[in-house]
């Protein structure tokens, strides 16, 4: 795992009505924030993709890699100075005949949605 326990820590994990949800805490001291960007720390959008991939691996207990993305929409920017915890939920995880997973994921904090992802991991 590249980002687990570096960018974020899993605080809790639950499943309700078939939707898996993780509560995460973000680490504002993560050194990459000094590089992205100097004086303007912002969570890189691609780290959200990596985070979703890592959480999916935790859920499925196997190696998975992003193969295709219909879309990843960044609705709002995540600044570690303003956002300290995130909720990542998986409204859809659908196994395909070839073993890959069709996934919808949403990243939010409180009532603010930051990212919506619709992708295939295999």
């Amino acid at each position: 795992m590249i980002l687990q326990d570096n960018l974020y820590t899993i605080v809790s994990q639950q499943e309700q009505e078939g939707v898996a949800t993780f509560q995460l805490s973000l680490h504002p001291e993560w050194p990459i924030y000094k590089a992205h960007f100097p004086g303007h720390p912002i969570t890189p959008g691609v780290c959200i993709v990596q985070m979703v991939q890592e959480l999916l691996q935790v859920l499925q207990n196997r190696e998975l890699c992003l193969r295709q993305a219909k879309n990843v929409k960044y609705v709002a920017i995540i600044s570690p100075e303003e956002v300290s915890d995130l909720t990542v939920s998986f409204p859809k995880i659908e196994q395909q005949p070839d073993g890959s997973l069709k996934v919808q994921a949403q990243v939010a904090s409180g009532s603010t949605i930051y990212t919506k992802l619709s992708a295939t991991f295999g």
Partner: protein
Amino acid sequence: MFRDIDILELLPQRPPFVMVDHLTDYSETQSTCCLTVRADNVFFEKGCLAAAGLIEHIAQTCAARLGYYNKYVLKTGVRLGFIGEVKNLNILRLPREGELIETTITVMQEIFDVTLVSAEVRVGTEVIATTGLKIAQGEQTD
């Protein structure tokens, strides 16, 4: 000639979060950057550049094009940039350690501070990934 420009002149990102080595071609509508996959990359995992690193490399190819335009054409400063959307991404395989990847972005639409591009990532003549990307520009860096 583009190759000779220090990439840090064109990008708002700083090491260790720099995912392009050089701008190799520039025009207003099409640009190319290259990267050699190294084990010290933040997104290096199990001998390959992870998907997130590949997408960041594509996004920074857009950033290098915008950086060149802002710095050498408009003669202003480099600006922060953000990914607004990744659309129709298709990864055929991940690039491995030591491989040189070349990414060409083609501008499809540019409206104020938002640029839509289509991107193709190659190792030699082999296409390993394609995607659409929406990039938004933010404030000028210091």
